[in-house]
């Protein structure tokens, strides 16, 4: 993998971590009345993060393929488990952890399945050729 790609993957994960706060804010806003002061405060954070994500994501897509970018977002499942436990004291059941692990494995297959098509090409464009299994 190119140094440039590693750099953009790191930036992507930093963006995803910041964006995962969106879940906390959404869940907080959901516990208040629609358009109450608290609701507006937390929804404001949601929208601000969406704005941040808007600009960041558009730049990411220029450097990484959509499926790679989108696949790496799988870590939000881990952030969801972490924030759910730490902030909302949700009981994390074994099947939820296993489910999250299975989802991440599925995402890994999706990503590597993508490489199967595009080969080792660094190009953003999907290759017209199909590799043999």
């Amino acid at each position, binding site marked *: 993998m190119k140094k440039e790609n590693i750099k953009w993957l790191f930036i992507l994960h930093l963006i995803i971590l910041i964006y*995962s706060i969106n*879940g*906390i804010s*959404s*869940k907080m*806003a*959901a*516990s208040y009345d629609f358009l109450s002061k608290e609701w507006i405060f937390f*929804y404001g954070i*949601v*929208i601000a993060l*969406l704005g941040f994500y*808007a*600009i960041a*994501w*558009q730049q990411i*897509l*220029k450097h990484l393929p*959509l*499926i790679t970018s*989108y*696949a790496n977002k*799988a870590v*939000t*499942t881990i*952030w*969801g*488990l972490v*924030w*759910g*436990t730490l*902030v*909302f004291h*949700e009981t*994390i*059941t074994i*099947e*939820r952890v*296993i*489910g*999250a*692990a*299975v*989802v*991440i*494995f*599925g*995402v*890994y*297959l*999706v*990503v*590597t*399945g*993508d490489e*199967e*098509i595009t080969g080792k090409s660094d190009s953003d464009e*999907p290759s017209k050729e*199909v590799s043999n*299994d």
Partner: protein
Amino acid sequence: MINKDMIVFMIIMLTGTFISSIAQIMLKKAAQREYPNKLAEYLNPLVIFAYAIFFSATFCALYAYKVVPLSLGPILEATGYIWVAIMGKIFLGERISKRKSLGLVVIIIGIAIASSRALLGF
């Protein structure tokens, strides 16, 4: 016993993810185009409409989180991979390999495992 409330709120969250996936495809389409300047990259109908969809999707998530736990929300959002793969194939001509299809099925299984207890309420 099946938790009917949970099913309804989970469907609301899944709907938000589905419409967000449509927006994702629109953003990729927009990113593939050439623009005369930086401003035009963001201020064009495709990008603006995509973000209008994201904006609507925030209300789906917000409403769903009244019932859906935060630890389950992002797992349900993983359905986005399935929609993006399908729509990527249809609208962007991106191929879905065997391995990728298998991955998509594994994601569905993972989501089913993770939400089993919340759905069935045992």
